[in-house]
């Protein structure tokens, strides 16, 4: 893989090709591979190698970006010129700041997220694991579908003010669906270190969910206590973090407008953005190379902090909102410039309960309720009340008298995130979880009262 020194040499060449006031290089690439299976067969199996460069230039307060994966000299010259041509035709942006040199920034230190064992994983080794997963399916008279993937990637940012940031990362992921005649179960896990993934264990849990929800019964929609497994919590929660953005407040598109500093959620809700957390992933700097700070976004249900890119912080300081949004400073959560979204926290870590409960204990304390494995096709119905709709999927159970009774047909919900996080009765220990609707987080399972199911589907 390309290393920081070679990338720096490439940047030196790009600087020579540029006539701009300032120039920035974002470089990314690596190798990724994914083995996909369904009907107990590997039916798709892919690998990809790519290196891309993305150039941002600045002329007199105007900026633009051009991207290519062609690295010959002519293409490098052309991509610089494309960026410059796009920048030159714009009107100056008074909010655009000079690029950061990074000097004086306190760097954020996180554990290494590169593991040789993950990087070296070959298709044969992935097939061996899939074969074992299929073995579990056959043992339980089920069919299985899913993926086993791995990748090794790099990314770096350099700019003409002298900034240089670099990040290497490996990733691995297993996701498994077990299908019965009229039921299904699901599990998913990922980690920078493939040694942390246990395909057979995940397969056994998914299989038990498929078996446990066979011949699902229909029960009426309505408000129920629900026990949400971590993947279900994160897929809901993910819809609110785009609003923890100074730019979203300035644009008046955030549900936190007029609500920062207020108690919006229950006392037991504490949420951080923390890229240094041992279970987190990703680079320790943002799209301008600013180190990511650890922030407590929500403290005992009160919205405390927003994230800021450098320019957003500057703009907020002179806005009508400045006295209503808590501390204002660049936090290292900006996206690559130029962009319309500004920034967002992407390394979410939930605080656990003072008295954590296991999923089994939550079930045991439930008189009548629903256990939810996973949610699906979640979309925002109302941006300010933060009402989300979506479906349950792949393992929905009826709980009564402290025990799982049987599988039920899947529900549609229309539930406000504000309501949901104000009604968390019990929580477990946070774990690294992965869903399909949002990015990975460190989240606990939760028991939530009065979750609003509005319809039932036919399976």
């Amino acid at each position, binding site marked *: 893989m390309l290393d920081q020194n070679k990338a720096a040499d490439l940047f030196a060449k790009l600087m020579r090709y540029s006539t701009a006031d300032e120039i920035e290089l974002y470089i990314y690439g690596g190798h990724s591979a994914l083995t996909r299976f369904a009907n107990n067969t590997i039916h798709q199996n892919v690998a990809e190698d790519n290196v891309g460069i993305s150039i941002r230039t600045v002329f007199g307060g105007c900026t633009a970006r051009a991207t290519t994966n062609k690295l010959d000299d002519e293409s490098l010259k052309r991509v610089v010129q494309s960026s410059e041509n796009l920048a030159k035709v714009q009107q100056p942006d008074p909010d655009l700041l000079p690029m950061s040199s990074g000097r004086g920034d306190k760097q954020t230190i996180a554990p290494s997220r590169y593991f040789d064992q993950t990087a070296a994983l070959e*298709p044969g080794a992935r097939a061996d694991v899939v074969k074992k997963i299929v073995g579990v399916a056959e043992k339980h008279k089920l069919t299985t579908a899913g993926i086993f993937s791995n990748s090794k990637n790099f990314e770096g940012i350099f700019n003409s003010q002298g900034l240089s940031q670099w990040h290497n990362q490996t990733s691995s992921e297993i996701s498994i669906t077990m299908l019965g005649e009229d039921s299904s179960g699901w599990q998913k896990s990922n980690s920078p270190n493939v040694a942390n993934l246990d395909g057979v264990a995940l397969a056994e849990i998914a299989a038990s969910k498929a078996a446990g929800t066979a011949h699902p019964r229909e029960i009426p929609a309505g408000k129920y206590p629900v026990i949400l497994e971590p993947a279900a919590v994160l897929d809901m929660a993910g819809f609110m973090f785009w609003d923890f953005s100074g730019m979203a407040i300035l644009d008046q598109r955030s549900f936190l407008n007029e609500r920062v500093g207020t108690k919006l959620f229950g006392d037991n809700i504490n949420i951080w953005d923390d890229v240094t957390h041992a279970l987190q992933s990703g680079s320790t700097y943002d799209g301008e190379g600013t180190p990511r700070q650890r922030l407590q976004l929500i403290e005992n249900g009160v919205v405390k902090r927003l994230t800021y890119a450098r320019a957003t912080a500057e703009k907020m300081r002179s806005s009508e909102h400045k006295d209503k949004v808590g501390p204002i400073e660049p936090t290292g959560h900006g996206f690559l410039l130029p962009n319309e979204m500004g920034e967002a926290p992407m390394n979410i870590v939930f605080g656990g309960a003072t008295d954590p409960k296991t999923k089994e204990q939550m079930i045991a304390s439930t008189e009548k309720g629903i256990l939810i494995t996973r949610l699906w096709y979640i979309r925002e119905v109302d941006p300010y009340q933060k009402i989300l709709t979506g479906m349950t999927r792949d393992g929905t159970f009826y709980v009564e008298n402290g025990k799982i009774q049987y599988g039920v047909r899947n529900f549609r919900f229309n539930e406000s995130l504000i309501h949901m996080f104000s009604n968390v009765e019990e929580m477990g220990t946070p774990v690294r979880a992965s869903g399909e609707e949002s990015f990975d987080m460190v989240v606990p399972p939760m028991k939530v009262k009065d979750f609003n199911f509005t319809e039932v589907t036919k399976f």
Partner: protein
Amino acid sequence: MKQIAEWALNIASQKGASYADARAVSDRGRALATKNGRVGSASDSESQGIGIRVLADGAWGFAACDDLSRASVEATASRAVEIGKASARVKQHDVRMAGEKPVVAEWTTPYKVDPFTTSVEQNLELLLKIDSELRSVKGVTLAETNMNFRREEQWFASSEGANIHQTKYTTGAGYAAYAFAGSEIQKRSYPTSFGGQWQNKGYELIEELKLIENAQRIGEEAVALLKVDKCPEGNFTIILESAQLGLQIHESIGHPIELDRVLGMEANFAGTSFLTLDKLRTLRYGSELVNVVADARQEHGPGLGTFAYDDEGVPAQCTPIIRNGLFTGYLSSRETAHMVGLDRSGGTLRAEGWNRLPIIRMTNISILPGEKPLTLEQLISDTDHGIYMQTNRSWSIDDKRYNFQFGCEMGWEIKNGKRTCMVKNPSYSGITTDFWNSMDAICSADEWTLWGTPNCGKGQPQQVMGTGHGASPARFRNIKVGSAYKQS
């Protein structure tokens, strides 16, 4: 590029592949956006590479690289065969492909104005003018516009002798006005939401959309929504405008007819389908008025699902999906065709780019317009009481595509054949087949628009694809309205 593809095919064959194809792709894009009077983002992009798909020991392998040197392409072809052989270690049977006569062909999207010949100044001037019109309305708190162009040139070659060179142009544009007040955020979009209208056309699309002419109205509607009543809740007759009906088709017809979903291949991510094989030519999908086709041919129009050949060299076709309400066809590929008794693929395999494996994707899944002349105004006049809903705001459907719920940006209450008052937060929900069987009127061809959905996600690793959906406004009886805001 032909030479590059030959390097790949030769090595794949030498390493033991029984079939191979190679797609060399060169992609160019421009993306411009404004926000509140300023350029929000401006970017150019290009990408090139080759994706090599092989059958080895009866199973699929795929590898892709951005380096088109001979050494790199040959190593990638070898890797594809190695991956195919690894796949073969977990298989139930060998892959069987429907026959297809290999062709040598050239094709380019018909266009009048190459969008990349238009200047960025010209593009931004238009967007900033729209932005200014939107913000001229008091109460608009956020204005956003976008314009996007893409040129995708692909050389496809197969070990069977196919050699196809296609160039596709895509153009898209749209805008939105937001109004925030009190405890509410309202939004209006044009020509439709989530990026506007997209077609396989040149810059002439931008000129056809009447973007500036509608901007002030859109701003005014966004602000007006803050002050009107909520859409009533209950069972109502509803009329859907054509863009919303296009999305309804996408979610509740387009996805469930994908044969890979039906056969369980997408079970882990995108889901499966209620359209099990026993339902072909037996299920009454909709009322007699429901006629739906999957049509990738140029004569259907410049949809995002229009092409000459799919990504395994099968010519574009028109497949009847629903005929007078009866379910008649799936979207198929060379691998899946035989599983529904077809001897030929329906030609729907497409990949997002050079680095993705082609999978079954919607082409242009369109409902045919009514044969009797009927305008939207005539349809409203013919409706005693109901809700007319415009422009999608939220969409969700279960993983077998039965239960759906859609929210729209704006509604109008219809009483005694007249639009009486604007209502906010309209939503409707139901079960797919019940819904389509409740359709009792559809407007005729003058009201029919071929909409583009540029952001359809599917597959692992996920691929984003553009699909087309032609629709006229249509009426549905006894539909559940208002569940989205219902607190039971």
